[in-house]
């Protein structure tokens, strides 16, 4: 395994959040204009993971477009997605796993929702709390451990 050209590309995900983007030009999560991400930059090793990740503002804009085209649910999804740009791949996988049937207790889901809310993902937190309530009613929670 060479790993050539991969130096100096630590992801900033989850650290201080994305750079703000004001202009109309599409910017990556890192704040870098997408137009500047070309083969020369790749060749020079100047393209990092956050240069290839979507910015939450872009997802917000796409949400507006979706709502304007008759699909408020797609818009809501894109807004939840905008929040999830702020958490790491590992955390995304972790939340998904926790939401699968019989994986979590009600308390664990409550804690997960709180963590999401604290991580800048209030819409996703709401989704998790909603899941918790339905799971409790439909028997989809993890059976409580014997003491």
């Amino acid at each position: 395994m060479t790993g050539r050209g991969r130096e100096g590309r630590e992801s900033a995900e989850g650290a201080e959040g994305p750079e703000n983007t004001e202009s109309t030009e599409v910017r990556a999560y890192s704040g870098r204009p997408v137009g500047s991400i070309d083969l020369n930059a790749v060749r020079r090793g100047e393209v990092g993971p956050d240069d290839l990740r979507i910015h939450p503002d872009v997802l917000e804009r796409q949400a507006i477009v979706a709502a304007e085209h008759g699909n408020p649910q797609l818009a809501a999804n894109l807004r939840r997605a905008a929040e999830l740009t702020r958490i790491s791949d590992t955390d995304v996988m972790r939340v998904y796993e926790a939401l699968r049937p019989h994986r979590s207790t009600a308390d664990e889901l409550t804690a997960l929702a709180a963590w999401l809310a604290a991580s800048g993902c209030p819409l996703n937190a709401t989704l998790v709390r909603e899941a918790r309530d339905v799971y409790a009613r439909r028997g989809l929670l993890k059976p409580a451990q014997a003491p």
Partner: protein
Amino acid sequence: MTRERVGRIRFMDAQRVNLDGFAVENPELGLVALASPYDPEPGLTVVDGRVTEMDGVKAADFDAIDAFIAAHGLDLSVAEEAMALPDVAVARMMVAPDVPRAEVVRLCAGMTPAKLARVLALLRPPELVMAMTKLRARRTPSNQAHVTNRLDDPLLLAADAATAAAYGFRELETTVPVLADAPSNAVAVAIGAAVGSPGVLVQCSVEEAQELELGLRGFVSYAETVSLYGTERVFTDGDDTPWSKAFLTSAYASRGIKMRVSSGAGAEVLMGGAERRSMLYLESRCVALARAMGAQGVQNGGIDGASVAGAVPRGVRELMAENVMVMARNLESCSGNDALMSESDVRRTSRTLPIFLAGSDFVCSGFGSIQRYDNMFGPSNWNAEDIDDYLAMQRDWGVDGGLRTASPEEVEALRRRAAEAARAVYSWFGLADFTDEQVEAAVDAAGSKDLAGTDATAVLSAARTIMDSGLTMADVVTALVETGFEPEAERLLAMLRARVEGDYLQTAAIFTPSMRVLSLVTDPNDYAGPGTGYEPAPERQAEIDAIRQQRSVRDLRAAQLAHRADALRPVREAAPGGDPREVVIGVSPATGRDVWLTLSGLPVVDALRELMAGLEEEGCAGRIVRFNDTIDLGMIGLSAARLSGSGIGIGLQAKGTALIHRRDLAPLANLELYSIAPALAPEDYRLMGVNAGRHAKGATPEPARNPYTDEAIEARYHTTVVSLVAIERSHCTGAPAEELAL
């Protein structure tokens, strides 16, 4: 004691369609297509902006699916209006060209699953075609291919992905026979796709969490295997809930990755969990849930369960109704025609045809671009065996089914480039080393059985290295640049940039080869009756029309000239003969000029030699005369008979049709006729010579019989005949008949 059935029934039993299973409709088992007596009555009660009852179930009794739909899926501002409309009124709106798509979409957003199922069940097949034409999201139809092989051979995957892209598929889906190979397959197919065309979307269908990880690494550009089911039990047996799937949907979008969900009739029946509901009603729950979750699209139309639907009455119709339902919910439709649903070529074509004619966002959600045996999803309804059929169908109907013709040269060049690019990347990362012979074998292979063999552990180890070393698609881009595959590197980088731009997260998005996004937003379907909606642009129409098998008169003339011979020479103007044993063989104007081969592939001079030899056997003498004033075989034969000393003549068109004529008969009468030129062998001409000799001697020979064939001989030769006749006509100058020396 059972008596054997009569031959006619035994014969019918042996036809391929009877390998299919046909089930008696049985609502208890969910073996019912459009409506079950146990389907709920549609209904919706909203109190203070909350759904308190839906389709006969009170909120307190909602299962997880009901609960998610009720909380997120319905536009309550139109629900009252929509639910009050009679089913048939909505069905008519779906079909009527003057009701805009947007109006149907607006109302359907307020309809419960039971309501929309009732509406769709009313649409008859041609009405489904009309509704699909109008309701699909994207104006331009498209198609998706499977690219897999039994060995997970990376070079073959890359070559086949490039081939699929060359044939016009805009989404490629791969999967694995060996789960751990998935990362290798995703990388190989992505590289091959980039060689074939810019902007081809790639996915690797594996277990949900692994599929997501492949997406996060950038190896795939969309996801589809996010399965939904219509009953809670089957859903949770699938190890998910509507909430976990909704979260997954957002997770993909959060990394800029296009995603659709999968559902479709039959899945619940196969798992014994249909709860006595109809397939259409259960699917209506899935589609409502897909919309509620915010997925942009749905793959349905009976995917793995297509043959279950196909086994019950009206099941194939139900499959198409599912697709239309997705469109009515304003979602992208990836319209099944995926798993092979019948052993019968007629049934599987019948199953696809209406969708093909109407056009869908993706006509197939998995056209097997590789051979049946290499399809690791199982054989598709359409496979590499059928690509030319499909291209011909597009041309027959003037319909854009998403495919294009690729020239043999283009296919070879792309396959080589793809295999070489894959080898370069695998070598760059130390994943595997492939030899020149392996590259060439992949280039030439029609399937994995043509490969010498693939080291299965090498693929597995490459896949493990990809995962363990944290490789991403950005690294693959670098490797391609460093190994001299810059255009491909640029194409893959463009796909990574597309994830940052986000436009392809909108409904029904694909990329054109120039990387323009076509979606509900940028390319909305505007069908409103004849003269509106999608029509292939002239360049696209030309692409559809120009299949590689088409031939012009020019092509045919060139092919004939390749067989030019100097065995036939004019010697003098033809005059009547006096020898009672003479038989004149009249030939058509182009004989020995531009036409040299008969339709059976026999050189015309050989046919003439056989005729002459047959005459000789009977002690007769043949004389060859070319007529330049007619191309009609009857007239040629009659004119020959009139010049002949015996009064018996043979007529021969250069394409091989031949007859025996007698000078006192009417032009269209004759003594013997060989009408099926493509089936004629040298001995047939010999026999005709013999018989003509016997006629000349005043005997009455037993007429020769036309060889019989049950093949579509006219389909095979009529275009050639038209060209040959045109060539004959061009030599029909009215010049005097001339005697030819052989």
